[in-house]
């Protein structure tokens, strides 16, 4: 029973219906912001929790799906191998919305192969990579996204070049590439909403500081550095299909992206002209931002019309895991034909 003063969304659910188990992550962990904004986004978009399936790999990030949407199915799989799990599972019912929760340790070391291949197949999946530059659950080792020169307790200094997740996603042909920052929850929510409505792999690199092992003010994945160096590309708002676009924006100040399900993303220009439909421009933007030591956030690239794995693999539109047994086994006559074909 719901108390009278509890707000309900369009399908009559309170925010409580989107919650999960209490977080066991460190206080102040960037991942908690991801958890909270995912709850907000799903609640505000009135997505039935049963329509969502959560997947994760191994690490602090991958524990996070326990902390949101306990009414959704979830599968905490193996290190770096969340994408394959999601691929198989979503074939069972392609009407479901997949959320993959991963981290830098999970996705760009052992998981690099699966990260790359899920993008090229364009599996419809919201693929969040909580990126803090360290392995938290094993107590503070360097990850592959740690910046060159990063010094960590007991680890010495990182002498290697970092992997840039957004860059990898762009050259990996992802159909939706974004970067968020746990210190900017409002933008994060907008990105999550857009990603939930995108048909294809939506990679969101979320700079999500590890307050325990990598949050010194001068390191690139810290709150302080992010706050002082973040350059948001645009103010992003999300317009549901049913609503007309009523808000008036100044001419030339906005860009509109139409998504597959009839919804729209409105991007309001901030500092510079930027349209996220040109992969080449996106790469250039990143290159410049890196040179200027800026943390570029927002929707960096989108192609709402790229074919998905379900378009390519010629499967029935029905829910495969509900096909009755008698329809699964081919007929006796067909086996006679096959025996006859066998010489």
């Amino acid at each position, binding site marked *: 029973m719901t108390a009278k003063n509890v707000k309900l969304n369009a399908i009559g659910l309170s925010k409580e219906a989107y919650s999960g188990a209490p977080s066991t992550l460190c206080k102040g962990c960037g991942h908690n912001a991801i958890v909270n904004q995912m709850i907000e986004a799903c609640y505000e978009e009135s997505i*039935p*929790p*049963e329509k969502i*399936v959560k*997947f994760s790999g191994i690490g602090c990030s991958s524990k996070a*799906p*326990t902390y949101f949407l*306990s*009414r*959704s*199915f*979830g*599968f*905490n*799989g*193996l290190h770096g*191998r969340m*994408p*394959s*799990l*999601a*691929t*198989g*599972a*979503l*074939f*069972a*019912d392609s*009407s*479901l919305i997949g959320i993959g929760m991963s981290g830098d340790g999970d996705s760009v070391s052992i998981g690099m*192969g*699966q990260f*790359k*291949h899920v993008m090229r*197949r364009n599996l419809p999946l919201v693929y969040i990579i909580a990126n803090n530059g360290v392995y938290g659950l094993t107590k503070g080792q360097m990850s592959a996204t740690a910046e060159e020169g990063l010094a960590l307790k007991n680890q010495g200094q990182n002498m290697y070049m970092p992997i840039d997740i957004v860059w990898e996603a762009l050259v990996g042909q992802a159909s939706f590439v974004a970067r968020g920052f746990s210190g900017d929850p409002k933008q994060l929510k907008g990105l999550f909403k857009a990603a939930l409505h995108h048909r294809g792999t939506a990679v969101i690199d979320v700079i999500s500081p590890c307050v325990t092992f990598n949050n010194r003010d001068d390191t690139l994945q810290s709150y302080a550095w992010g706050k002082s160096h973040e350059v948001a590309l645009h103010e992003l708002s999300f317009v549901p299909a049913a609503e007309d676009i009523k808000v008036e924006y100044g001419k030339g100040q906005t860009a509109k992206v139409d998504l597959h399900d009839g919804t729209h993303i409105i991007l309001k220009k901030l500092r510079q002209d930027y349209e996220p439909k040109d992969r080449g421009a996106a790469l250039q933007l990143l290159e410049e931002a890196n040179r200027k030591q800026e943390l570029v956030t927002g929707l960096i690239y989108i192609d709402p019309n790229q074919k998905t*794995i379900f378009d390519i*693999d*010629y*499967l*029935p*539109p*029905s*829910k*495969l*895991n*509900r*096909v009755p*047994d008698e*329809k*699964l*086994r*081919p007929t*006796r006559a*067909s*086996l006679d*034909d*096959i*025996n006859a074909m*066998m*010489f």
Partner: protein
Amino acid sequence: MAEKKSTPEFVVNDFSITVGTVNGSGSQTANLTLMRAIFKMGIPVSGKNIFPSNIQGLPTWYTIRVNKNGYLARSETTEVVVAMNPVSFADDLDKLSPGGLFLYADHIRQEVHRNDVIVCEMPVKKLVREADAPRNLRDYIANMVYVGVLAHLLNIDVEKLQEALSFHFGGKEKPIKLNMNVVEKAIQWAAENFDQTSPYCVEPMAGTEGYIMAKGNTAGALGAIYGGLQFTAWYPITPATGLPEALIKYRPLVQKDEGTGRYKYAVVQAEDELAAVGMVVGAGWAGLRSVTATSGPGMSLMGEYVSLAYFAEIPIVIWDVQRMGPSTGLPTRTSQGDINLTYYLGQGDTRHPVFFPGSVHECFEFGWKSIDLAEQIQAPVFVLIDLDMGMNQWMTPAFKYPDTPIKRSKILWEEDLENLDWEWGRYLDKDGDGIPYRTVPGNTHPKSAYFTRGTGHDEYAKYSEDPETWAANLERLGKKFELTRTMVPEPEIHFRDGAEIGIIAFGSTTFAVDEACDYLETDGVPVDYLRLRALPINEDVKEFIRNHKRVYVVEMNRDGQMCDILALEVLDQATKLISLTYNTGLQLTATWVQNAILGKEMK
């Protein structure tokens, strides 16, 4: 064609042909044509491709055994040799039995140093030229010369050759005609120029009625399809690739949705075996009947997900088409070396049911039965065959339509949950058989969802590190495994009068063992034979061991892996078990088994 009668000087329907060629020279068409024609004459026949890990250039052999008794195992002797490869010419000649027939291409300018064999030098290039074959196809089509010469010498029915070629080329007239031209030219040449008589010949019989020719990989794929397959992810590896490729080939024929014309199962080529098994686990978890196929190296890579699937209780089927290991080993040679690997695959306490089909039609049968079992017990199930069974063409009884309806997990959908009078928990053993009820994504009931994890969990799938909860859960999984002893295919036992000793074997070696049992009986050493069809074993196997003085466990690996597993199961009888292992990468032969057992018994 010369008239021949089955007088005593002829050996009729009992000999082997070995063809030595260069890999990639197109000899497969010629060899399969010969074998199929003999099969269509009603004569039991088997063919084995012994090939290198190479696409083009290295020596390769094909042996065809013609046997009126229906013995399909490899024979250690070869009575007819066709030498097409200068590199292996001398060895091929050495292999030939005394009095045998030696055919070779005249471009090989080497001396035939034996005078105890019948020699036929074939003018291959000349005949191909005369048959008007297009220049670019001449090298490939050259092999049809030996088909024609053998047809003449062995009395193979030309119409059946035509039928075999027509099948091979899917009825396409041009290549059929092209190949038949060469065959006919060669027959004519042999009739006019070769004046010796072959001591070997074939004669039509009625030994193949009700049989088809197929590969184990194809049969396994079809079995899975008739088991209601819905999802496959795979990664190329010899010798398993043929199984998923057959799934792709037959998809448009048998699994189309009537309304939409779309396919009812998905086939995804993954980026590696880590991903292939991950996809299959995801699909199995979400309620799809899921299968993958690999070989030893891929199996190793799949280990971690298999361990998770065992612990999280997810139905999947994995075919391991074994090749010779360890490591890359002999990737194109056969083996039964992955028994321990699959039976125990995973970290911690893991054990899995393993099926061992002993023939191609049993690959079909176990194809659907393995999916049923995986669904019923919500766990990984393995099917082990080997390169010999998977990649070679075998004559085998026609595939039999499944005689039981598709079996499903204990799955709860919306109305089931609505009508439940007890509180469902994903890992709650409500029925007391160790097998819980499950729900799958897409279920819209608010109580249907649960969180699946590889970490400790209680009966309601909640994270738990509680010692008692952990131990109880693992006990239940053990109980579930014990239950499978009565669910897996039972062994097949062949008794012989007066037998005091027994043999246990499984998989492709069964043909050699069956044949060896006949020979041993003649030798005065009758043996009972238990063909193991699955692990874990049931009471019949224990009883078989108890009731025999000695039991020989025959397998193709170094350490006697199956023998070890059996010894642990029957500790009090373990000293009766004698391990006989053949580990060369070639297929087991009946004479090897016969000699090995006589060697032990006659001591």
